[in-house]
Every structure is written in C-alpha cells, then in structure tokens.
C-alpha cells in the first residue's frame, strides 16, 4: 500500500515551470539565468533542475527564452490557474482559454 506522509502545505502557485525530463538535458542554463534563483540543480546529473522556490517566480520567461531545447518542449512556463486568460473568436463567438483541452469545445451561448 502507498505510504501516506504528514507534510506541510505547498506554497501556491507551486508549478510555474514545467519540464519534460525526457527532453531536458539537465544543462542548467535556466538555473544560471533565473533572476529570482528559483531553481536548484538536480543532484542527479543530466536531470531537470528542482523548482525549489516556485513562490518566488516572477514569470519573466527568461528560463524558457534561454533554453536550448525549448522548441523541443524541454521547458514551459505555466501561469497559475487564476491567470489563464480567456479569448473569444470574433467571427464565431467561440470561447477559448490558456490551458484548455482543445480549441473546439465550449461554444459560446451568449445572446447577441
């Protein structure tokens, strides 16, 4: 059976950056450039860094900007749920938002 631990609450937001460990080479370029020093190099060589201080992330995106593997999906900046903004397609009235599953769900039903 899974062990259950007594642990303190996480800080919120706690996942400003999402790595893909299969792509990330663990070069720690993001660790080098972060203005808030949010990351800590992984104790295991070649692995993505640990996000040690997620609450101090300023969401400037420089970690993504500097990542040599960003376009292969090694790193993404992820705004907290409260900041995932919405938009509306002018011609169809469809609603979308950051992080939604696909672009054709949620038809807007507003009267016009």
């Amino acid at each position, binding site marked *: 059976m899974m062990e259950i631990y007594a642990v303190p609450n996480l*800080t919120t937001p706690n996942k400003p950056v999402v790595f893909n*460990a*299969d792509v990330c080479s663990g070069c720690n370029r993001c660790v*080098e450039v972060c203005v808030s020093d949010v990351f800590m190099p992984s104790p295991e060589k070649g692995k993505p860094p640990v996000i040690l201080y997620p*609450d101090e992330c300023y969401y400037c*995106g420089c970690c993504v900007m500097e990542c040599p593997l960003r376009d292969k999906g090694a790193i993404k900046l992820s705004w907290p749920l409260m900041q995932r903004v919405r*938009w*509306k397609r002018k011609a169809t009235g469809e609603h*979308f938002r950051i992080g939604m599953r696909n672009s054709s769900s949620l038809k807007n039903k507003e009267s016009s």
Partner: protein
Amino acid sequence: MKNEGGDMPELLKWQYPIRYGQEMEVDADVLVLGGGLAGCFAAISAARKGLKVALVDKGAVIHSGAAGSGIDHWGSCPANPASKVSPEQYTKNQIETFMGGYGNVIAQYIVARDSYDVLLELEKMGMKVRDTEDEFKGAEFRDDKSKLLFAYDYESNHCIRIWGTGMKPALYKECKRLGVHLYERTMVTSLLTENGKQGARVVGATGVNTRTGEFCIFKAKASVLCMATPERLWIFSTEWTGLVCRDGPPSNAGDGHAMAWRAGAELTMMEKSTHEEWGGSTGIGSALFGSGTTFATWYPCSLVDAKGKEIPWVDRNGDTLTSVSQRTHPAPTKKQDFFSLVLGGGEGGKSTSPHLIEDLAERIKRGEFALPLYADLPGMPEHERRVIFGLMVGQEGKTWIVYRNLIQAGFDPNKDMLQVYDLGPAPHGWRRLRYGGLVHDWDLKSTVEGLYAAGQQIFDGCGASYACCTGRWAGSHAAEYAMRIDTLATINREQVDKEKARVYAPIERSEGMDWKELESGIAKVMQDYCGDVKTEELMKIGLQSLEEIKEIEAPTICARNPHELMRSLEVLDILTCCEIIVHACLARRSSNNWLYFQRLDYPVNDPPEWRKWITLKLKDNKVRIGELPLDYQGPLKKNYEAHRK
C-alpha cells in the same frame, strides 16, 4: 505518461558549496553595484576609459533587472532624426506638464540629449532598433528614411519601438568584451566609508554570495550605485505570483536605497513612493500585458463589449475620436502640446493623451455596454495589430513568454479578441512608477564623496532610456573621479567586522521569525499607517511600529541557507526603506497631487511654500531633514555642456 521532473525530492541537500564567513577581496578602480541597464552602461563607460571595473549583481547580468526580459519602447528620445521636438521642449513638457515641476530635471535633460546616441550604441552592440526587414513598410508610425518605428505619438516621434528582448544580452556581451569583472549572484549588503564614518567618502562595499554564503569585500576608488526602486513594501504574499511586485523583479528590494541611507547619503522625493497596485501589480490580476487593455504596450487597441460594440475614445478636450489614427495624434486644438511621456499625465493622473471615455464604468453599470470587454485586435488596422501583438507584446518585459504561450495555445491576433479583466483598463498612473532616490549633482554624484548613482537609484528614475543614459553618464564621471585618485583607501576593519556580524546573524539562529512573516508584518504597518490617506498621528504610530519591529522581531530573523539569508537581508532593507518613506511623508506637511500625496491634516494641495524638494539623510545615526529648490539644476544647456565627459 510524460515525465515532468523538477519536483522537490523529500530532502534535498544544498547543491552549492557553503562558504559562510570566508572572505573574497576584490580591488577595482570603479565598482558598479547593480547590473541592470544602468549598471551595465556605467560599467561599460568606465571600462572604455581603460579602468579596472567590477560589476556586482544579485542575479545573472544577462537577464537581471527591471528590463531583464525585454523592453518594447525607447522613450525620451527627442534627439532622433525624425523627431519634431527638441530636447529642451521635451524636458520642459516632461517636468512641467507631466510632473508639475516635481521631476528630476538634470537626469531628464541628460536623457533627452543623449538617448539617441545611446540607442545607436545599443544597435552597434547587436540589439535591433530598426525595421530592417521592412515588416512595417507603409505604416503611419514608420519613418521610411531611418526605418525607425515610433510609438504612442506619431506626430512628434520622441518614443521609438525597439526589439528590447535583446538589450540585456547585448549589454552583457559588451561588458564581457570590455573585460568588466562580473560578480554575479552576489547581494551587496553595505557601502564601506573612509574610517567607517557615516557621510564620509565611499571606498568600497561588502557583499554576500547568495548561493555559497561567501563574504565579499570590494575596494574601489569610485562607486556607482545602480540598484532599483524598492518593491514589496505595501503588499506582500507568496500566494500570488512574483511576491506581488509592482514593476521590477522581486529581487528589487531597495537594497541600494537602504545602504546609501546607512552610509549617510541624502535622498529626496521618498514621500512619493506609492503602493504596488499602481504598477499594474503583476501578482494579483492576470500577467502584465497578458490580457486585453489599451494601456502602454497595447496602446491604441480598440476595445469592444460582449456584443461587439466599440468603446469610444476621446481626446483631452473630451471630443469623441472617429478613427484609430486620431488616437496617436495630439488633439487638434492643442497642436503644439505633444503627448506626455507614454500615456497619462496631468495633475492627479488625468489623461492628456487620447483615452477611453472616462465614464466607462458608469455606462457599463447603466447597461450601455455589456461585460466582458475584449481587446479587438482583429478590428485594428493591420499594421497596428501586428505592431501591438508581435512587436510590443513580444518585446516588452515579461511579454516574450505571453506572446509565445498565447500563440502556442492557439490564440490568433487576426481572429481572436483577448478578454479585458475589469470594467475597462484601470487609470494607471505611469508617473507613480517614479519613486524617490538619491540626491545628485550634474555629475550624477551623490551627496557623499566617491559615490555616483544612476537609473532608479536616483530620484524620479524610470524607464530603459533613462537607466542607460544616466548609467553611461554616471559611469564616465565615476571613472574621471577614480583617475584622479592614486591609491585605494584602506578599508576600516571594524566596519567590515560589524557588517559581517549583521549579515550572518540570521544563519546563526536556530529559531526565530522567517523572512516572510517579517515582510508581511512590515507591509501591514505600511498599509495601516502610511496608505493613501496620511496624518501625523497615523504616521507616528507607523514609525513607532516599524521601530518596534526593528528592535523586537527583526533581530530574530532566521535563515537556513544562503538563499533564505538573501531574502532575510532584503527584508531588513525593506524595513529601512519603509522607515525612510515614513520620515519623508512626515516631513512634507502639505498635500500634493503631483506626488500622489494626500495628508488629511494638511489638505491644501501644493501650496507655494511647499513647492520644494524635501531631503533627508542620516547624520550620526539621526534623521536630518533638509530642502532643495525644485529647480536646483540651474541653466540646462550650460550645465549639460560643462559636465559632459
């Protein structure tokens, strides 16, 4: 399933070597403290004179500072070839119309004169400043001869759109090329003075490495303080993003203000310091410029209501505008009166540039417009749409990632309208971003010998061109000063030891208060006793509360590693900044709309006897209040020429 990584293991060993107490000594001709735009330019201009330059930065120079992730406009640039205003006209408008006389004339004039040359220097360093690919050929805001793109005001052309995500990387490369010695991840903790005396010549600084905890002693013939306006003073929470900063990154904790104060340098305009919501506070709402607005980067985007009805724009006379183009031109009846800075201006934040109808919120409540509102990019003329979303959103600070994330999520500026998250854009007061800072002369020398300052470190400092131009100016004057000095001064060991004890105290305690609780407590005092409405009684209680915190809770602050030590030392600097602000607010016994300063007990706005700078400094550890005439700069052209190096 995708393997994310990045998670916190149950117990993680500190991955950097720990060197608490160990000392590293550095000698330099010129020491630059803070490596943002101002600091980089100060270092570059001193290094160009062949001097040994050390640059200390809390982050990594390539992306540190308020413009670390980019900047989309180069303001205060009336000396460019397509400008229709002179540096003198521009400065007069900025100081008189935009700030009612309460502006930094010396710095503003230096910027107005030098900013085009500085922009050309940045271009030489590799930053893109022109539409070389003719992406915007035929646009109203483009000067076809120079290929410069102008922003906001298409008639007077004093603000240039730039590809500023390349600015910090270009400056970083230039610093390296010129052999500037970089000390990164190093928090400067104090200025060292001759014989350790407050108010005496600055002869160096101390610092602590934020990863190893190593102690650093910097000795220099001249120093340039280039740190930022303090953030995190009124609102603090770690449950919102970025520690709820106003404008710059969380590391902008007022360290420079605090150490200059302790060293005895004089500050002014500190009573103008206003709380965080006014920067478009990044933590509480959506990501800055990451939702629909008409403000700054998004200017002059059309807004529509939920049913597609456009929100009208008016000019400063209240006349309704009928085209998008009119939003970027001065009102016809005031032809000669070009826009104030970017947007806004006028007493009490009243907009002098074209803006949305002022009673929008009322008209929404009456049912004339339906919520939510949207930024109608598809409805904008093509050049405007592409320059707002793609250049401005994309190059402005923190928007490179906004552009990338939105496009990756399927947002199409040709088809989609981004939601506006309130009853229309808030009345942002861009002027509010201009805080107090160090008093200086025409050399950008502080009131303390050997100490120069630039960027947000001087009073009223704001903006990228401001930071770069004042940095360049201060760096070259510091270099001239250093060249007149034969040998480095001896460091006072007692002063170093005292500072060392102060710096390491938080890691020597095994229990006490953590930095977050201390910071929240300080912010609450500022909200309760130094908020929008001020009285003598309130502020005296505030000052007493801060003094109590300094005596009772601050000496218990506790840190478990070098990173927490950095944050703890920042909070102590924040506490000092708050004290300076309350002292300054108590000293100005009159209300002043230009300074966003309301005193219930002195309600008369800007009476003539209070039209002056209130200055303050420490002497023998006692607060000394002084004053300076608003126009202490003297004749502009003459002084500029006499002090240009």
